[in-house]
């Protein structure tokens, strides 16, 4: 519409490429605290092989695009989760795996030390329910995230 348009054009042209690239190359920061962490390993292991989608586990949050919170988050752990999330580089995504990370799950009632859902601390993009969710469900969650990355927030 006006003179400043060319600058914007470059940005909008690059964005689809970036979204495509990011959706196919998600570096995961596997933050597994409890039972769901086992299923997260199983997804990465031989039979389910999450690497097919270009998802690689990285052990430091600095190099990760995605944090998978798998397992119960306690009051003692909560500040650390927040800090790890803040250490990640934008754009960053979070998947909450299992009912503990979604709402506290079986530890929702009568509990004094469990955080009732990781979304009380950080922003969550995809929720994968189950206690623990099956590997197929976790893969579905990752595909949903890819879809979300491609479409933009």
């Amino acid at each position: 519409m006006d003179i400043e348009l060319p600058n914007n054009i470059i940005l909008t042209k690059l964005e689809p490429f970036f979204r495509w690239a990011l959706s196919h190359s998600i570096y995961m920061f596997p933050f597994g605290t409890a039972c769901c962490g086992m299923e997260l390993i199983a997804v990465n292991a031989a039979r389910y092989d999450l690497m097919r989608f270009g998802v690689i586990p990285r052990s430091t949050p600095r190099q990760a695009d995605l944090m998978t919170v798998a397992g119960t988050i306690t009051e003692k752990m909560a500040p650390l989760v927040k800090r790890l999330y803040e250490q990640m580089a934008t754009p960053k995504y979070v998947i909450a795996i299992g009912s503990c990370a979604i709402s506290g799950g079986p530890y929702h009632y009568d509990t004094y030390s469990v955080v009732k859902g990781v979304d009380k601390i950080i922003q969550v993009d995809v929720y994968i329910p189950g206690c623990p969710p099956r590997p197929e469900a976790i893969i579905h969650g990752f595909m949903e995230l890819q879809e979300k990355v491609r479409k933009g927030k």
Partner: protein
Amino acid sequence: MLLSLIFIIIQALIVFAIVGAAVAVTLYSEIKVASHVQSKLGYMRTGWHGSLQGIADMIKLLLKEEILPGKIDKLIFLIAPYVAFLPVFLSFIAIPLGPGLIVKDLNIGILYFLAISSVGAIGIIMAGWSSYNKYSLIGGLRSTAQVISYEIPHLLSILPVIMLTGSLSTVSIVNAQEKVWYIFLQPLGFLIYFISTLAECNRTPFDLPEAESELVSGYHTEYSGMRFGLFFMAEYTHVIAGCAMATILFLGGWRGVFLPPFFWFLLKTSFLVFIVLLLRWTLPRFRMDQHMYLNWYILLPLSLFNLIITGLGILLF
């Protein structure tokens, strides 16, 4: 003057393209080799059998945010990845890919290669120092110890080859292997060279500076975005450079029958790179003291012994 400058720039770009392509292929095959060793498939969804994965990774790393953590030594932190990557890349100048396919046939080619490829370790030490992270610091210090010690057998294993050839030029070394490859004259030298190259490139079983299960990610723990990508590329470039040099020194360079010389060179180098990748996914890691023991008590005496035997052989025959 201007023409030669343009010529140099074109040459540099060609080398960069070749190295970049080689690194991309190595990265892809690393994942594929690893996956097939572990009875998995590896990249499958990005292009045909994940062949576009390298492009996706690169675009993503280029456009991602780069974090500068607080309390870092900013200048050193920023230039460390380049210090790690550029020298290794420059070492390709002295590597002949075929007859005449060399940027500059230096008459001190081997010396140049040895000198410049070990500068890359300084980048690692700089990264470890400047990150303000204890894991990085330990990784950087480990790298220092590793470079200082493994440089010696690395050099001593090449000396016999130079003695046999009587020249420091890479092209004349290849030409000298017309009758017999030096691996048959120097099996021990090849072994020592290969092991110390593994150590210089921080590959398993000597990947102590980045030891994932101990030091999180070692020296590049605090790096993100493309600077992390540069460290990644530096490692693989170093592996390729090391293997290419091994091909020239011991496997007769581009020499071979039927196929064009360049393909022979490529084939031999790829075979060595494949072995390096395979080792990564089969062997556990050494501990730091065992690592040093291996160098000072085993490799160093062996390489000295090899040197003396070679000298005696040249004297007698």
